[in-house]
């Protein structure tokens, strides 16, 4: 322990250690969720799913996939905008990693407890879409371009309900800090989802659209756009997009858990146990939401572009705005 504090006091060593932790955690979470998606979707369709790699249950399937991606040729199309094409996966991954900064894992366990935590999280999560747009533009491919532009249109439409439903929670908690929001729920004695059910539903729908998961996967839309903005990517760059998608699923779920489901807190667990159990509780709750996302993906068909836009502009934004106003009125009156 003393050695660790000694090491952490040196800025550069601490930086390298933190980077190592991030470089381990994000692919690990991505792989766990990716494997869960493969296996659960198989069970939902009464299939076996991956079972060969690694012996039992095919647990090494995603590792085998990763090794496969490493062996692939790194193709860059002739008409591609080379520097942008190369940077795009890094931008997507950077947005993903930056989102992990403000996730409160437990009491006091957070990379940086920013005063504007939720604002930062919502802002930085849009960076992923910028990367997607870059990828779509730089590929020099019509399908990629259409996919990238669809992603941009989707971001503009669904960023608003996402922010508004978070605003209602911020009004209730009276703070924008992620730890502050969790502590507000602890002191209130109930998770905010009880009073903000509408906000929670709107947030989850908008988060699905932000992640461009089915039923909002128009930027990828295999049957129309080949693979959307991913069409021209191969090898390690493709792996980056792939891991970022699954890690993003986790971080968006973790933010939803923090805002609405009480974060690392479970009623009835004493404070000294929470010190250690906090991260596990947060991960458990987040995986429940991730499961819901996987469940939606294999249930619902893809929406049409006009349905996507009208759902956001005609329904989600008015509902979440009304939610904000109501929450504000009640906050002032009560």
């Amino acid at each position: 322990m003393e050695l660790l504090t000694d090491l952490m006091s040196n800025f550069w060593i601490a930086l390298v250690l933190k980077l190592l932790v991030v470089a381990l955690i994000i692919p690990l979470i991505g792989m766990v969720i990716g494997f869960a998606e493969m296996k659960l979707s198989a069970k939902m369709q009464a299939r076996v799913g991956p079972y060969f790699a690694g012996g039992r249950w095919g647990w090494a399937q995603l590792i085998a996939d990763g090794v496969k991606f490493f062996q692939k040729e790194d193709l860059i199309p002739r008409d591609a905008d080379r520097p942008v094409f190369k940077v795009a996966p890094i931008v997507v991954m950077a947005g993903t990693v930056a989102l992990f900064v403000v996730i409160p894992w437990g009491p006091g366990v957070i990379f940086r407890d920013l005063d504007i935590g939720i604002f930062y999280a919502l802002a930085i999560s849009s960076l992923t879409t910028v990367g997607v747009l870059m990828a779509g533009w730089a590929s020099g491919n019509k399908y990629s371009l259409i996919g990238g532009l669809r992603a941009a249109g989707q971001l503009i439409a669904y960023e608003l309900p996402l922010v508004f439903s978070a605003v209602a929670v911020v009004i209730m908690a009276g703070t924008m800090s992620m730890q502050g929001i969790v502590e507000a729920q602890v002191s209130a004695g109930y998770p905010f989802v009880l009073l903000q059910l509408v906000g929670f539903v709107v947030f989850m729908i908008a988060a699905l659209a932000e992640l461009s998961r089915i039923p909002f996967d128009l930027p990828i839309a295999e049957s129309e756009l080949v693979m959307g903005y991913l069409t021209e990517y191969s090898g390690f760059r493709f792996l980056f997009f792939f891991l970022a998608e699954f890690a993003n699923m986790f971080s968006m779920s973790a933010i939803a858990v923090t805002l609405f489901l009480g974060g690392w807190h479970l009623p009835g667990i004493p404070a000294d146990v929470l010190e250690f159990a906090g991260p596990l509780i947060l991960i458990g709750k987040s995986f429940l939401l991730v499961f819901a996302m996987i469940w939606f993906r294999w249930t619902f068909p893809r929406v049409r572009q006009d349905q996507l836009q009208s759902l956001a502009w005609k329904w989600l934004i008015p509902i979440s705005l009304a939610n904000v106003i109501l929450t504000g009125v009640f906050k002032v009156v009560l």
Partner: protein
Amino acid sequence: MSSRTVPGSGLWKGMWVLLYTMVRTIFKPKKYLATVNYPKVKETPVARARGVIALDQEACTVCMLCARNCPDWCIYIEGHKEEIPPDKPGGRIKVRNKLDRFDIDYALCMYCGICVEVCPFDALFWSPEYEYSEAQMGDMMHDMDKLQDWLATVPDQPELEK
């Protein structure tokens, strides 16, 4: 009376079906799994499965109907006339067609089964065998001896439906 449903109820119904299927597949895989662990466990194909086409060389008369009807032109047939000397002196010589080559290129075949349908002498049969993949594309060309070997795997014809 048309049965009316609540709008949006299909969403919940679909989600319920998936959850239900998932739970029962996880807990009772033996009963509810629809697929098998392929290389370890193998399914028995149904009796009329279109796996591979078998050839009965004795029955073939080199009439070329199958080759001409094949939409993919994946059947190669060559043959020659064989003269059988007359029984009595001064009689007419008998002629019969001898099959020299009968190849099916399974890299091209689309398993339509027209050749089997069209064969007037019942020389072609469907066999349910399906494990004959090759590492090289060229090896998908099955010659007539190999096609003759498939004949052993052809099941007895199922009874006609009444």
